[in-house]
């Protein structure tokens, strides 16, 4: 049963049929899927969802695509982990991590692609494509491979090796564009008007974007059908950040949870902070930037959903923060050392910004907070390779090991020292 009803312009409200289009013909505003929420309300219940598959398809009634076209490689329903050691380190009573590093291509982008590719197949597209800062490319390439579809992924030319190989291995046509993500995005927007491909974040973007709501759904369900006091999530284009909140609101709209009162705060890298900078300046109009940050996954200087992200901060009494490259590395390390979760740079941005928002008192100690960790650390090893302890190098002899260990610790230790 499908409950998507139409595409609606977020700016002027004009409605369009459910086609592969993304922009209002009149005002250029982004088109968003409109649903029959009464229909969804009647179709869903807490019990039915809880009995569903352990993937994002447990929320199929909320997704604007026909599950018969799905490409299911196990995306979604990732762990929500109680993070007491990190909570203590940053100064919070209760902190949860939504660990989305464990998706099939190791980032939350598998969620948006799950919806986009199902819808694209329903439309009859034979090839998938995307403009990507890296993670989306990995997700599109993986899902296209599983579906046996042609795939064209476009990335900027400064990405980490893990992101490049992490796409190439699935054998798409991988295109490295001279320039930043914003150049890639402009090129692909123009290409989308000439090639008959489903560009997940362009011509099928209205469907794609809806996939991120499943992060909001899952957190609400995993907390026992309620929402937290505060959310901290990373922002590139700002889409994910706005869709988590939309997920909370929709769960309320269909009667699954009480009205959400969550304060929504966003995290950016200082070297690419158009949204956080506009927040600090108290305006809804961001100024685009030329990115210079190790957080390549978040390096979008011209964030298309920046305006909505800023409005949402205002509406929910949330805020934004930004992290320098050093703070990002510290954030990645702190998360790994306290919770055993190894995140890529976006996770470092999120943890560093969480810490700043708590330190400044913007997030109060007693606010139950969920931090979204959206991509896995092995994708961006370059960021931390010089910041981790070097291994002890020893011959295979117990005395050599004991000597090396006491040298590292600055005092005799271990079995031989006590013997």
């Amino acid at each position, binding site marked *: 049963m499908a409950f998507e009803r139409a595409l609606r312009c977020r700016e002027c409200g004009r409605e369009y049929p459910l086609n592969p289009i993304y*922009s209002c013909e*009149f*005002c250029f505003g982004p088109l968003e899927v409109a649903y029959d929420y009464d229909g969804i309300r009647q179709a869903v219940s807490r019990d039915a969802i809880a009995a569903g598959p352990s993937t994002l398809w447990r929320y199929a009634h909320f997704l604007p695509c026909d599950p018969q076209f799905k490409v299911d490689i196990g995306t979604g329903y990732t762990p929500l982990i109680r993070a007491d050691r990190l909570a203590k380190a940053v100064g919070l009573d209760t902190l949860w991590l939504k660990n989305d590093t464990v998706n099939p291509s190791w980032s939350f982008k598998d969620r948006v692609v799950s919806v986009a590719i199902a819808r694209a197949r329903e439309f009859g597209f034979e090839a998938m494509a995307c403009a990507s800062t890296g993670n989306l490319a990995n997700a599109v390439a993986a899902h296209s491979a599983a579906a046996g579809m042609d795939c064209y992924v476009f990335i900027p030319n400064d990405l980490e090796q893990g992101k490049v190989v992490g796409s190439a291995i699935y054998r798409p046509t991988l295109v490295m564009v001279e320039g930043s993500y914003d150049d890639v995005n402009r090129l692909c927007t123009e290409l989308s008007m000439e090639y008959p491909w489903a560009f997940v974040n362009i011509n099928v*973007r209205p469907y794609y*974007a809806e996939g991120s709501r499943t992060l909001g759904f899952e957190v609400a369900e995993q907390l026992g059908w309620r929402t937290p006091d505060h959310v901290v999530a990373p922002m590139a284009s700002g889409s994910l950040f706005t869709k988590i909140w939309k997920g909370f609101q929709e769960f309320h709209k269909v009667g699954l949870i009480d009205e959400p009162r969550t304060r929504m705060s966003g995290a950016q890298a200082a070297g690419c902070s158009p949204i956080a900078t506009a927040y600090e300046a108290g305006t809804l109009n961001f*100024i685009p930037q030329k990115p210079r940050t190790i957080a390549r996954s978040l390096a979008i200087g011209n964030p298309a*959903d920046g*305006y909505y992200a800023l409005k949402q901060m205002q509406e929910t009494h949330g805020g934004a923060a930004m992290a320098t490259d050093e703070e990002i590395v510290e954030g990645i390390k702190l998360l790994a050392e306290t919770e055993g979760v190894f995140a890529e740079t976006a996770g470092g941005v999120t943890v560093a910004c969480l810490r700043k928002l708590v330190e400044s008192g913007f997030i109060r100690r007693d606010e139950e907070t969920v931090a979204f960790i959206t991509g896995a650390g092995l994708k961006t090893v370059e960021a931390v390779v010089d910041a981790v302890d070097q291994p002890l190098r020893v011959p295979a002899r117990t005395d050599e090991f004991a000597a090396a260990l006491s040298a590292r610790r600055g005092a005799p230790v271990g079995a031989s020292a006590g013997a």
Partner: protein
Amino acid sequence: MAVKVKIPTPLRSLTNNLDQVPAQGETLREVVLALDGSYPGMRERILDDGGEIRRFVNVYVNGEDVRFLKGLATVLGEGDEISIVPAVAGG
């Protein structure tokens, strides 16, 4: 100045489906007004009520976002290529 303007799909209904049209103007603003002369309705689609570029329209001159140049006051050169592209999110 004679420039080339690439027209995005949503505006092609105004240009008889042409994906690229020539235009004249010293600045980007003049080009938008000239386009409106040739293809009535263009101005209100690209500019908002205050006469500024709409929030979800990106305009590029030779590949550079005009917000890094002088916006509508950007001075154009002979043969410059102007692209009008809807903003799209993702990453």
